[in-house]
């Protein structure tokens, strides 16, 4: 009897645990962060590709603003990606005159700060510099770009959008272990 009773108790407990787990999944991932981050213009030298630095130490962009853990920010990145015409060169991620972003090949690094620097500073062979963006917007773009090759948690990566579909939705994209790749010679698509 008593054993059974405790069994009943544990069942209720397990239900609660389930909800608590849901909770942890919730909070961070779901926040809509409109203005809790002070506007800061993205600066090219803010992110370093190497910890070494000659001369006086320059300021670093705070990683606070990173958006890889937030579904809403990632969705904003998706919106900016098409609004700023990244699609013009990268297509829907499949690449065109610019390199594909939904594969495991990374010319300038797959780490968030690498991608941040690539967007802000621009790269040879045509990647323009988006220095005028807000730091927050860049991080949102970084999150989306990483979601294209499945580098984000599935419940953060986006679903299908309301347009013609040219690729599987990000949340169904399995993680691709990043590999280094050589930049393509200029002029070649």
């Amino acid at each position: 009897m008593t054993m059974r009773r405790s069994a009943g108790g544990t069942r209720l407990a397990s239900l609660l645990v389930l909800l608590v787990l849901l909770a942890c999944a919730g909070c961070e991932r779901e926040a809509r962060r409109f203005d809790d981050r002070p506007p800061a213009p993205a600066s090219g030298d803010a992110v370093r590709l190497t910890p070494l630095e000659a001369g006086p130490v320059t300021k670093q962009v705070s990683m606070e603003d990173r958006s890889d853990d937030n579904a809403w920010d990632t969705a904003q990145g998706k919106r900016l990606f098409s609004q700023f015409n990244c699609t013009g060169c990268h297509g829907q991620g499949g690449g065109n005159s610019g390199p594909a972003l939904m594969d495991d090949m990374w010319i300038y690094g797959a780490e968030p700060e690498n991608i941040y620097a690539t967007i802000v500073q621009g790269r040879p062979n045509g990647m323009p510099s988006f220095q005028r963006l807000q730091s927050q917007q860049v991080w949102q773009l970084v999150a989306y770009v990483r979601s294209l090759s499945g580098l984000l948690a599935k419940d953060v990566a986006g679903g299908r959008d309301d347009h013609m579909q040219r690729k599987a939705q990000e949340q169904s994209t399995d993680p691709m272990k990043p590999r280094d790749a050589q930049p393509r010679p200029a002029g070649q698509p």
Partner: protein
Amino acid sequence: MSDSRASDVDVAALPTTVFGPRDLGWWGTVGFMAIEGTTLLVAASAYLYLWRNAPTWPPEHTLRPSLFWPTLSTAVLVLSNLPMIGVSRAAHRFDLAELRRWMIVASVLSVAFLFLRWQELLALNSRWDTNAYASVAWLTVGMHASLLVMNACETVVFTVFLHTSRVTERYFSDASDAGVYWVFITLVWVPLYALVYLGPYFI
């Protein structure tokens, strides 16, 4: 018993096992048939609604479904009602041995349905996330598939029960209700088959 009066209703003599609409279980079965039927009706109406909106059906660059496996499967579903006649006859006769035999046949069939249904999904020839046509086709077939899965589980478990446990009368009534449900899910598939697989060929 001394003070029992004429106007009282004595039910002691009434039977404890009855079949069909007289039986409580039958009403439960029919209730869920109504609900599941409505659900399939919703899927079918969504299919027709999207069809009506589409310039071509299926959309360009989308293959029409192949017909071999779906047609075979539909035929098997319909014909599977013959053994169910055996089940219900055995049930009404309270003939346990025969009921056990027929239920084994039913179990085999109910599992075979699942294999056939898998082939039917592949026969749609386009993934659910291709376009709205593929989505609604997949979910219509898939929703009926979920009924087949439930039916398979139910049939197999019930068959095991019949073979392992001492069977009382009421389970014969349950068996005949299971037969009613079987008829429902096999026959309700026919219009869905016509809609999803034949539909795209006749516009």
